[in-house]
């Protein structure tokens, strides 16, 4: 049964003179009980498409919508505020990307879920709370009744996402949209959440739209997939078919750009060259033409329509590729795994970081949290050390000692022989310039009141370096952004674009060591590949050292020379990357490897087989 039918949807932001075509003619459909995965680069219009199904795009004149959205037989476009309120929650519900920001921090889960129920049904407060308990149970949150009185901050990340799912489910929607529901979570938790969504869809007969940039997730959890590019669906069909035999070059490139465990170590990823198109000036022809490896002359003039190329498989391409031939890989170039010589650039020596736990009126120290517990690591110039582990394992705490944000309670941390807790005058400036950091959350790390130009210029000015417009434009170009971005504020960029800005800012002062704290985790694969390749290039050029913090072993496959696996504040295993990938000795390392895409264990389900090719 057809549940959702989107026809020729367009969503346009900004003034009519300078429109941003965020969604430029999307056709999609979802059946009851079916999972549709929507993938595509950052800024390709996935979230905006989803928001328009809930009528949550900004109001005109800031944003204009055309086209048709039919949900369960009702036309949604043109509804008034009241009509939309009746649809939201009851017919379609959405789980937003970041569970820590999506729930109100000052209201209990009970209040938030009961409110949603009472918005649609005239039930008593007590009855609404019973419904909340039922919803929490459905979302498999342990101990649902006691959760009612809890606030979001009292839950772990995974539990928060379950609570957000419960909030969406409480009103019994026919269609659930999950926008990157697991990006912010640990691998182990990711699998559980996706499993929960899967079984809910089956048991409740809901339609599910899964927005994601993780093709591994698509392979294991989606019936059909729609690939978006520049505000359009460019390829769609059954998952196995689209991932196994993609026709549109962009889909192919996406597949090739995904980091995989079974790829050769430290080889360049097949990044899609160039930049995503400027949505203000879409070319008249195929939007992918400037980046397409098999572009024809006609592609620049005629816009390809979404047409069938195989049973059930539609693609928008004038020169569709066939057969399982992979797209050319841009300049593969593995560097020899040399053993490091010379002095290390950073040294952790038996470092401990214990946070005191205080209780009582006198704030006596009753215990310690051992965030980092006797860690020794060495990082050499020109090499990448990947620090792998779940959140809470102490990875970030450890790097905070290097960045002088935290004083180790034991051991020493040295940068280029300087004890970072006791730097001399000049040494401090050197530390601040030569050690840069890129954080995971681009929303939090860029000041929303500054323009991108100001953001990039700030560290340069602090260190008395060239902060001319040309220099700033060069920095942006390195990370695949246009110089036009300099005058805009971070709010005007999608998540992936913002992360590239953060990378550009870190590159500015020409550091010798960059701490990448889950720096590419929030990026979609093609940009991830670009950034990883970029980091590798810069490393070779400038002999840069990277301390790469991640929870995903596949991601660091292409960059890591050495790997240290961390758990509960300790290093459980460390060594050369090849050794860790081939012969992991610790059980926990094996678990992490099993979770990563491309691991043989993932071939269990039939759907994955197509993906593994």
């Amino acid at each position, binding site marked *: 049964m057809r549940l959702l039918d989107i026809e020729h949807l367009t969503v346009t932001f900004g003034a009519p003179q300078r429109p941003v075509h965020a969604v430029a003619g999307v056709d999609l459909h979802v059946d009851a009980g079916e999972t549709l995965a929507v993938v595509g680069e950052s800024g390709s219009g996935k979230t905006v498409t989803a928001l328009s199904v809930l009528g949550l795009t900004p109001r005109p004149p800031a944003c204009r919508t055309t086209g048709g959205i039919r949900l369960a037989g009702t036309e949604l476009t043109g509804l008034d505020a009241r009509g939309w309120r009746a649809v*939201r929650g009851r017919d379609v519900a959405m789980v937003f990307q970041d569970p820590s920001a999506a729930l109100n921090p000052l209201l209990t889960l009970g209040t938030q879920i009961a409110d949603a129920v009472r918005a649609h049904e005239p039930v008593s407060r007590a009855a609404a709370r019973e419904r909340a308990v039922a919803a929490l149970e459905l979302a498999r949150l342990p101990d649902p009744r006691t959760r009612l009185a809890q606030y979001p901050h009292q839950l772990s990340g995974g539990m928060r996402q379950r609570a957000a799912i419960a909030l969406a489910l409480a009103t019994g929607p026919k269609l659930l949209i999950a926008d990157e529901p697991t990006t912010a979570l640990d691998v182990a938790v990711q699998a559980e959440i996706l499993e929960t969504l899967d079984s809910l869809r089956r048991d409740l007969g809901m339609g599910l739209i899964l927005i994601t940039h993780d093709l591994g997730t698509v392979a294991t959890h989606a019936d059909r997939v729609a690939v978006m590019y520049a505000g359009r669906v460019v390829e769609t069909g059954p998952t196995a078919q689209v991932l196994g035999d993609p026709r549109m070059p962009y889909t192919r490139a996406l597949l090739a750009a995904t980091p995989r465990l079974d790829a050769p170590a430290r080889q360049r990823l097949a990044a899609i060259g160039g930049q995503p198109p400027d949505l203000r000036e879409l070319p008249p022809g195929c939007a992918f033409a400037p980046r397409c490896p098999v572009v024809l002359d006609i592609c620049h003039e005629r816009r390809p329509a979404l047409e069938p190329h195989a049973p059930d498989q539609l693609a928008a391409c004038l020169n569709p590729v066939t057969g399982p031939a992979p797209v050319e890989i841009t300049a593969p170039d593995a560097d020899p795994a040399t053993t490091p010589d010379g002095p290390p650039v950073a040294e952790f020596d038996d470092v401990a970081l214990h946070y005191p736990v205080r209780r009582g009126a*006198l704030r006596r120290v009753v215990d310690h949290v051992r965030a980092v517990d006797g860690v020794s690591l060495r990082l050499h110039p020109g090499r990448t050390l990947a620090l792998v582990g779940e959140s809470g394992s102490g990875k970030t705490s450890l790097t905070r000692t290097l960045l002088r944000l935290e004083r180790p309670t034991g051991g020493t941390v040295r940068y280029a022989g300087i004890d970072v807790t006791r730097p001399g005058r000049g040494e401090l400036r050197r530390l601040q310039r030569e050690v840069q950091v890129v954080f995971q959350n681009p929303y939090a790390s860029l000041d929303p009141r500054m323009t991108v130009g100001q953001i990039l210029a700030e560290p340069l000015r602090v260190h008395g370096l060239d902060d001319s417009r040309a220099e700033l434009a060069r920095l942006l170009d390195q990370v695949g952004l246009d110089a036009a971005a300099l005058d805009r504020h971070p709010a005007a960029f999608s998540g992936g674009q913002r992360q590239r800005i953060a990378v550009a800012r870190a590159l500015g002062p020409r550091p010798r060591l960059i701490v990448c704290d889950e720096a590419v985790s929030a990026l979609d694969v093609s940009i991830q590949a670009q950034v990883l390749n970029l980091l590798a290039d810069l490393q070779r050029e400038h002999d840069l050292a990277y301390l790469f913090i991640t929870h995903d072993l596949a991601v660091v496959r292409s960059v890591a020379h050495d790997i240290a696996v961390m758990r509960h504040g300790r290093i459980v295993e460390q060594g050369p990357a090849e050794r860790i990938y081939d012969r992991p000795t610790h059980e926990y390392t094996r678990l992490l490897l099993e979770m990563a895409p491309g691991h043989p264990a993932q071939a269990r389900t039939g759907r994955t087989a197509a993906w593994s090719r």
Partner: protein
Amino acid sequence: MIGYLVRRIAQLIPVLFIVSVVLFLLLRLLPGDPTAEILGQEASAADRAALRADLGLDAPLWQQFLDWIGGVLTGDLGRSWLTDEPVASVIVDRLPATVELGLIALLLAVAIGIPAGVLAAVRRRTATDSALTGLGVLALSTPHFYLAALLIGVFAIWLRLVPPSGYVAFTEDPVGNLVRMVLPAVTVGSTVVAVVLRQTRGSLLAALGEDYIRTAEATGLRRRRIVTVYALRNAMVPVVTVTALQIGALMSATVVTETIFTLPGMGTLIVNGIFSRDLPVVQGAVLVVVTFVLLVNLVTDLVYAWLDPRITY
């Protein structure tokens, strides 16, 4: 919680001690001889010397300080050099007018500033918003003495709705008291109302842009509930902060306002005390005010914890 309170109050002690020392020394640095102020310029040198001895001004400074602080610790704030009344009872006489003024001003701030700020935020970029924001800017940029004169001119002299100045105690004549307090309270409150309005508007707009508001909208909640419960509560934390910060500014507004409306409050007490070099009165009054401001700070922190469950003490 109780432990936290005890700790915070214990922390006040060293702060108050330092304030006492600084206050004491600053007042001794005032130019002029207090005995000349008290006895008049024509007083003989012998009379002034006698008074000096009488007031204990002959003793070394540290001795004078110890005498004073020792008294304070036992609840004795000393006596006025001018009238010989106990300082404590002078303060008790003057406190009600100032406290009432402050309370009404604060009430205005909450009762007018918050709803007006919410209205401005909800009707953002409309005539209502511009009008409210404009009024706020006007209130912030009008000096208190000017506003007071304007209010007296219009409401007391022209419309004759209220008496232009004077004070009766609330306990004697509640209506008469309130009628006389309206204009001073509006004068003092204007700034706080404007500050609260601006902060409420700003932080409510920020809160309305948060992800959790979109989540609430996605569940089909009414706009009204979203604004008043989901956004406003989150917006209140910064509002409480700026309001608390305004307390200090409020005290200086009180001085001007009490003088113009001839209210017998702490502001006039301190100012007159400084002019007449009645140092024990000034010391006592300022110490009371400082203690009050510090306690307001403490209460503010407790309000945070009440507003935001993530804060625990």
